[in-house]
């Protein structure tokens, strides 16, 4: 590649938005940790991470795009091994972490990119007819479910959740049948059903709501699920013409009955072990506390109330850098990582929020342009996956701070302190820029 061509096809908007966000991040990590001497040098670490990330970004720019796809399987397998190794390390703050010499390496973050690459490669190789088949979708799910399972064993609920929008977005873009995607979404809601009502009962009714206790009674649930199972079996018989003499027009009814009833049956059945073994009580309560954080002001609602207070205290213009009243007085937990947004919002005010959203919008604008101009489907899917990942991170992290999303600790791209995810984000941007640069190299295979 000629140097002049490199500079012409270099995506300046994307690059400088990213760099600007990183600079903001370093300033506000410094501010957030000002009152915590033990974390005082985190901003320097963040600079180092940013430089590492930048190196990766530049390196990826010179990589031929075809390697992204041909190497994706190896990348995926290595990271799966990394996740397995992580499970043998001790717990840090309730999660298993691979840490060497004080630097912890989170394979789960890099796994996001690997999954996007492998999934895109896998789906792009299928023909339109193959993509319509259930078998293809199930294989796609398998690619995602392996890392998801390993991450759940750590356990890291927040990171695991990111894989769901990635899967849905890439599959949507690839043209998987929409009813499969609908099935997946409804299925996830069904799995969340029992934990949700348990949390409602616990949080708002002090475990004393009679109706919920009735619903949660294992005896009644068993009866209910048995009835559904029997009707499903009958419907399947009818659907596959084992029971004869049913009008063709009614077939469609049985099809949709099996579709929805199986969601309820399997979802709720899985819901029980999920409720009991996967989710801890505090996670269950966090699911719902954002509806009414005043309910438990000093306990579960504390984070969300403090975060909203901090954001609201910023006002239009903010209190000024390192001058946030609440930020500087220990009122926010984890303010350099998960709750970095309130810090910026308090010290820069609404102008700060606007600036962040504007910079993100620029990234998405460029991302969508790259998506539209992608030279082939593999690249289009990769871009879709990356955009879905970034969007979910932004929506969840900022939404949590604003009290419109449940609390799960996931970082805000480019702004939160944390090496692995920052480097991951830089790699993601690098891939976007690479695809953009090579969009005219049609036969680069």
């Amino acid at each position, binding site marked *: 590649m000629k140097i002049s061509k490199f500079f012409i096809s270099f995506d300046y908007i994307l690059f400088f938005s990213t760099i600007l966000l990183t600079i903001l991040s370093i300033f506000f990590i410094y501010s957030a940790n000002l*009152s915590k001497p033990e974390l005082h040098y985190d901003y320097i670490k963040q600079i180092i991470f940013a430089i590492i990330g930048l190196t990766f970004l530049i390196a990826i720019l010179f990589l031929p795009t075809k390697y992204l796809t041909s190497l994706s399987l190896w990348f995926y397998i290595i990271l799966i091994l990394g996740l397995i190794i992580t499970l043998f390390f001790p717990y840090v703050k309730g999660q298993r972490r691979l840490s060497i010499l004080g630097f912890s390496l989170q394979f789960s973050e890099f796994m996001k990119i690997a999954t996007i690459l492998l999934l895109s490669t896998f789906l*792009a*190789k299928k*023909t*339109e007819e193959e993509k319509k088949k259930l078998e293809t979708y199930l294989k796609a799910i398998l690619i995602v479910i392996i890392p998801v399972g390993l991450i759940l064993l750590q356990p890291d609920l927040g990171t695991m959740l990111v894989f769901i929008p990635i899967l849905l*977005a890439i599959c*949507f*873009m690839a*043209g998987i049948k929409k009813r499969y995607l609908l099935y997946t979404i409804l299925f996830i809601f069904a799995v969340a059903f029992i934990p949700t009502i348990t949390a409602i009962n616990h949080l708002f009714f002090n475990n004393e709501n009679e109706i919920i206790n009735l619903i949660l009674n294992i005896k009644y649930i068993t009866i209910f699920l048995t009835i559904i199972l029997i009707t499903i079996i009958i419907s399947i018989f009818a659907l596959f013409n084992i029971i004869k003499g049913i009008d063709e027009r009614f077939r469609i009814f049985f099809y949709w009955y099996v579709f929805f009833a199986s969601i309820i049956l399997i979802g709720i059945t899985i819901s029980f072990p999920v409720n009991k073994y996967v989710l801890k009580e505090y996670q269950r309560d966090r699911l719902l506390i954002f509806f009414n954080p005043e309910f438990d002001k000093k306990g579960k609602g504390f984070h969300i109330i*403090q975060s*909203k*207070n*901090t*954001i*609201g*205290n*910023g*006002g*239009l213009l903010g209190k000024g850098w390192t001058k946030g*009243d*609440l930020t500087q*007085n*220990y*009122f*926010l937990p984890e303010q350099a990582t998960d709750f970095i947004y309130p810090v910026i*919002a308090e010290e820069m*005010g*609404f102008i700060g*929020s*606007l600036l962040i*959203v504007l910079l*993100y*919008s620029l990234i*998405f604008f460029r991302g*969508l342009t790259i*998506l*539209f*101009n*992608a*030279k*082939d*489907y*593999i690249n*289009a899917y990769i871009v*879709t996956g990356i*955009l879905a990942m970034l*969007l979910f991170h*932004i*929506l969840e992290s*900022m*939404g949590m701070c*604003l*009290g*419109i999303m449940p609390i799960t600790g996931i970082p805000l791209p480019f702004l939160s302190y944390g090496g692995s995810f920052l480097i991951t984000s830089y790699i993601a941007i690098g891939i976007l820029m690479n695809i953009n640069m090579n969009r005219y190299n049609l036969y680069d*295979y």
Partner: protein
Amino acid sequence: MNESLLRKPKDSRNFQTRFIIITIIIFFSLFIILFNALLIQVIRNPEFSQKSSSTREKHIYIPPIRGKIITSDGKEVANNRTIFNLYIDNNVLEKNISKRQKVLLLLSKIINFDYNDIENIIKSKVNTKEEILIAENIKFSTVQIIKEYTDQLPGVIIKESLIREYPYNETLSHVLGFIGPIDPNELALKKNLGYKQFDLIGKSGIEKVYEDELRGKEGRKVYAINAKMVILEEIEEKEIKPEPGNEVILSIDLEFQKNIEDILADRTGAILAIRPSNGEIIGMASYPRFDPNIYILLTDENNEKKRLIDLDTKGTPLINRTLQAVYPSASIFKLVTTTAILNENLISPEKQFYCGGVYRLNNQEFGCWIRPGSHGWLNLEGGIANSCNIYFFNASLIVGIDKISQYAKMYGFGKITGIDLPSEKAGIIPSVQWKKEQGQTWFQGDTLNTVIGQGDVKVTLLQLANLLSVICNKGYSFKPHIVKEIRSPIDGSLIRKIEPEKHIEIKNVDTKTFDIIEKYLRTVVTSGTAKWAFWGNPLKFVGKTGTGEMSKTPTTRETCSLFAGYGPIDYPVEDRIVVVVLVENDNNEYLKYAARLANMVFHSWFTKENFTQTAKRYGFPIKESYR
């Protein structure tokens, strides 16, 4: 090479649609985020910025000093006492086990506690960061010893605190009431007045009614803190100094109050003395009494006493019998009918009815109290003087129940007087309408029962005092009140004076009628039923006796002895007092005769002699117990 790979994705129609959907989702999500940020940071900003400033301050509330209650003769009947409480600061206490044991052993020896008890108290509260209360109200001598050994007792702290004290114990207990920790219901009602959990609040009596005056204003110290609750500095400009509560001055005369309590002694009953000229209550005694001090400190001894009081359902020591209990008004109620007769000229005062001891109505017998004797022929004056039931049975059928209940209501029966003490009972005056509401019909027998103040007639002593006040004032009375004025605790200056307020004002009754009634009442004392009770008292008192039937069973008959009177009638109205006396379960006993007690009450007020002197003068036996 796959075909799909060769074509550019954007040429596909499906791809374009999906691309548009994804674009919409992305920018819609970002818009939602920005919109919420706008909402919280700009639109709802004032609410949040205020909120956040209060989370950064720690308020330490300083309770105000509760106002004193003082009687009209200047005695403090409720004030505050300093007590010493012993605390242990677990953070300062030695961590080394043997040293710690040494400290606690020494402490246990000084305050005469078991070493294990102290250890258990500390263990039970090991998680609190505040100091642990070990003993409340320790003796001053013990405090001195602990102060001597201060350097050997690290972590042991003595703190002073003020508690309510009622120095005269049982005297005036029903009037004063007591204070206690606020309960959830009161808290819900008074939260906006600045009350908090564990605050003390007046529970009965003056303490309850004048809570707002006595409480004072809470002060606070404000400290800036960080999220770890570490105090950074004191914000002095936000400090509010507590304001002590106002002093409440009672119209009660403590000496007189003690005298009437001695006169009542341990008879179950009540004595009420009131000035008719302005409604001030000068004495209010009710027996059984209680010691309000037991409600202040939570000791085992006090808890036991409280339990005994709660168990005493017959004596009900917490009930103020002058206004929180109702009694049959008995013969005193005859004055109501008399007013009706005289005012409306229904019966000539000289018309005589014959008392043979029994009155028959529809095969039912209604007796006179003198039965098996008889009064013979009596006119109205004789009927009142001898308290003859038969006369009033005859008269009642002429006057009619409608007139009787109308006049009774005119005198203020059946409704509360509005005295400044809590839980006043209204009583009942039966009428045809009232009985209909109960689902029953009115019989003539009911009229006979009503006219002599029996049956469904239920009144409080305060209402009887009010009746006598109206007669004494010739047509009006003032709202009874027990607090004379409110004074500032700082310089003793007058803040508020309770002005007399008209309670009853009867316009359609001629003052001559009241003159005649007063004359009749004088006859009661000079030659009627109270003749012997007032024998030898030179002052001209008037009054009416009564014997109320509390309950009647075939075997036992519980009665109560009543007297209501005022005087002296040759004194100006300002100097007269109204006295009402009630003794329950009198059983016609000489020592429980209410009129005798009333005589002594009158004497004691006008001569300032105490009970012993008064009793000696009237030859009244002085005993340990009059039960």
